[in-house]
């Protein structure tokens, strides 16, 4: 005698679950709309910064974790196609400038002078020159990067490309796409590549 009641209950639960449970997509689009109404432009930080490109959109679905292999491959291919190497073929600039760029934390925040310096802030996330003890650990240590991997052209190309667009080699990296997103100029990327790859750089001493 209980069974009709039970099935009625199950149906009710089922229906109310359907009513209240929003799909993942619905929640995402609600959240995106919410973001749009929650900010105001401030100087260089304009509202279009809330618009995602395909990579940002895909990467937001995995809550900071690595995406599944097939999605990752798609993202990596997408980003690899964006890497622009310098036309003169020379990938290494001045490591001394590179060190300054790696130290510089300013740039792109609404509190930063839009005409002021824009750095790579590499030390926020990486160990590089051993003299600098105030380094972060979001990324791996890059101490002795060139020395350990060899100074050859292939490693140079990888280092330059990685800084230009890290997602080309590791989808949804926590590292900014410095070249692709226009944070650093070609010359600045050459200079930090030299910091990693020049045998005379403190990184490799």
């Amino acid at each position, binding site marked *: 005698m209980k069974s009709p009641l039970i099935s009625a209950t199950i149906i009710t639960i089922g229906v109310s679950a359907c009513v209240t449970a929003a799909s993942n997509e619905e929640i995402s689009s609600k959240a995106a709309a919410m973001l749009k109404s929650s900010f105001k432009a401030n100087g260089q930080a304009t509202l279009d910064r809330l618009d995602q490109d395909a990579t940002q959109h895909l990467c937001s679905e995995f809550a900071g974790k690595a995406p599944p292999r097939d999605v990752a491959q798609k993202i990596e291919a997408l980003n690899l196609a964006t890497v622009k190497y310098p036309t003169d073929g020379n990938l290494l600039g001045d490591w001394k400038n590179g060190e300054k760029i790696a130290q510089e934390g300013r740039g792109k925040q609404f509190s930063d002078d839009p005409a002021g310096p824009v750095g790579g802030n590499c030390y926020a996330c990486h160990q590089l020159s051993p003299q600098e*003890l105030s380094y972060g650990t*979001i990324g791996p240590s890059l101490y002795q990067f060139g020395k350990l991997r060899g100074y050859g052209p292939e490693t140079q190309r990888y280092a330059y490309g990685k800084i230009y667009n890290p997602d080309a080699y590791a989808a949804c990296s926590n590292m900014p796409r410095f070249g692709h997103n226009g944070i650093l100029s070609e010359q600045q990327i050459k200079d930090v590549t030299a910091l990693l790859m020049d045998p005379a750089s403190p990184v490799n001493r």
Partner: protein
Amino acid sequence: MILRAERRELGSCRAASLILTQSACVLALSFCVTACALAQTSAVDEIAKYRAALQDGNPAELWEARGEDLWKQKRGPKQVSLEGCDLGLGPGIVKGAYTRLPMYFADADRVMDLETRLVWCMVTLQAYNESQAKKQPFGNGERKSDIEALVAFVTSTSRGMPMNVALKHPKEVEMYQAGEKIFSYRGGPHDFGCVTCHADEGKRIRLQDLPNLTTREGAQKAYTTWPAYRVSQGELRSFEWRLYDCFRQQRFPELLFGSDASIALTLYLARNANGAIFDAPAIKR
């Protein structure tokens, strides 16, 4: 008002005058940080000691006292106090209210965090207009924020009580889910989202330790220690300020005070902190 700190000895920072004490401690702290870096260890232990030393005389008490005055004073065009303000437990009940926020309020038909609710009460009870009430959400040197003082007062009465945020109303569920999504939302020139800096264990930026806010323990530890008196800024900071400043570092535009994104993220973290004992206003570097 006499601060307890003024009558006490604070480890290496003797407190004859709080102002002097503060700068001496900042110096001591930056020395600690350098020393710790030299030893290649995290600065966290030294900062914990520093906090313990100051806990007896947290300058946040100044904000709490000013907030209590503001709460009780007859103010605004209607010349009434905020004592009739309903923070969720009924008009005038302050103690414990913060442990249940953010929550849905039927009168406003909206999920609100403490800051938003305070503005609501200033508008509906005292008849301030909304822009007056929101004029100075965060203090800035000489120009102190009434909201931050009220936040300090209200939160202080929940100290020692467990976080207890319900997700009952559909709008609360919706806000929580949006908060979770916004936490993962990556964008801007640096591709950053909250997850970039707060989804892994034991990471740091330069020497600043980053809490993992995606775990229960991480959310509990962080949420229960805000608002906080920031020694480096000489200000008491509300949770909305914390979010505002993290979005700045995220290279996003400027977060609007009382916006849904603030409330959604606050609800997400507050709910994940459930069960933990609220212990703020705290003191931070």
